[in-house]
């Protein structure tokens, strides 16, 4: 409480923002091409099935590239580890009906973000695996390809819902959107949405925060 409320906290590193941005664009391309491949009206409208399929397949194979490349960076690994770990507080947050009111102090990511992260990652891996089996017309037996098609179809529906939910929450919170765009968020927002994470900064001397230096120079 000793700090001015306008302070900016560093939320996402450059590496994290690039991984998120490149993977995000690939996912949007995958969803758009998937819609054309699956939806009859769109298929009749757009056509060009071999081209759309090639874009879909290569975007799918490209998706792990930014993620794996990102793991070379400590900041990306730290955020992944943060998303991975569930504490008793996270379970309490998920069960609580008033989870958004800030009574349960939330760390860098809330339990919903953690669930979305691991479900999206697992779903994405399943889509990649089944997609590869569907393509392996010479290697995989027919029944495997039928099974892979079934899993791919239903998983893509679920994955689409996860992305829709992610975008829904993002678009409702411009400050959170600014966080993933510029890398920093205002301290008042952090205290409200991620109180436990914001509190971690209170132990640190002000000199550690370049964003604050910039502010004092104005």
């Amino acid at each position, binding site marked *: 409480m000793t700090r001015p409320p306008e302070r900016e906290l560093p939320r996402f590193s450059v590496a994290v923002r690039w991984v998120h941005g490149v993977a995000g664009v690939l996912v949007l391309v995958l969803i758009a091409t998937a819609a054309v491949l699956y939806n009859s009206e769109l298929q*009749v409208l757009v056509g060009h099935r071999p081209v759309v399929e090639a874009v879909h397949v290569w975007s799918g194979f490209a998706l792990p590239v930014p993620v794996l490349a990102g793991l070379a960076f400590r900041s990306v690994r730290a955020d992944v580890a943060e998303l991975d770990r569930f504490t008793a507080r996270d379970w309490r947050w998920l069960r609580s009906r008033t989870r958004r009111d800030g009574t349960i102090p939330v760390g860098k990511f809330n339990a919903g973000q953690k669930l979305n992260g691991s479900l999206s990652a697992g779903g994405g891996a399943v889509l990649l695996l089944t997609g590869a089996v569907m393509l392996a017309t010479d290697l995989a037996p027919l029944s495997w390809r039928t099974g892979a098609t*079934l899993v791919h179809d239903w998983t893509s529906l679920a994955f689409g819902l996860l992305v829709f939910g992610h975008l829904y929450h993002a678009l409702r919170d411009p400050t959170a959107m600014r966080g993933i765009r510029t890398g920093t968020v205002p301290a008042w927002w952090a205290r409200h949405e991620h109180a436990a994470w914001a509190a971690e900064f209170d132990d640190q001397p002000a000199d550690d925060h370049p964003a604050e230096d910039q502010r004092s120079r104005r």
Partner: protein
Amino acid sequence: MTPSADRRPEGAPVGRRVFLGLLGLGAVGIVGGAALQERLTPLVAELQIRDPTGLLAALPAGESFRFYSVTGAVPEASAAGYRLAVSGLVERPAEHTLAALQAMPQTELVRDFQCVTGWRVRAVPWVGVPLSHLLDLAGPTDGATAVRLTSFDGEYTENLTLEQARRPDVLVALQMLGAPVTHDHGGPVRLFAAPMYGYKSIKWLGGIELTSDVRPGYWERRGYDLDGWVGTTNGRDDDPTA
């Protein structure tokens, strides 16, 4: 550097378990999904028939046609402007209007439609002119051994041997599902080769050319078998449709 990067987060690695669990389920689904699909398809088909909103049609299951188009938007052919050209190694090249085709002897068939990608629509009613009738009208010359079919989408082609083309269950279809073939289903005129996978039943039929050799069609140049018999080709084991 954010403080969170300096220490290990506490708690159980639930994310990792979810990730690995989903991957495991996916692998189980690949191996066992075909059996599940056999039970799922009739259930979903039943629901889709009773669904007044039509929303369930978006589910990736059930017995419904899927539409595959290899070009951009295909120009719609009006009933008046439609022409079917018969050319190549024939005594009497011809151009048939839709009215002329409708005036020819019609054959009715009810057959399953099986796609090489796996989906099947049961008991589809078809009405059309047997391709053999058009071939008889044109009179193939001695050198003719194959039939090349072209689509007025400008891109798609298909091939049959002359012997296959003369089968009584290969139709130049004018009606499908109890009504004139719609544009999306390849109308006003498409082929229906009953004993073969769907890729042989060319949509938006525009030309029939008699040739001296079988030239691979659109999908056959991309790896599909020249002979599209359901159940014995393309590495598949579906129940035959004829």
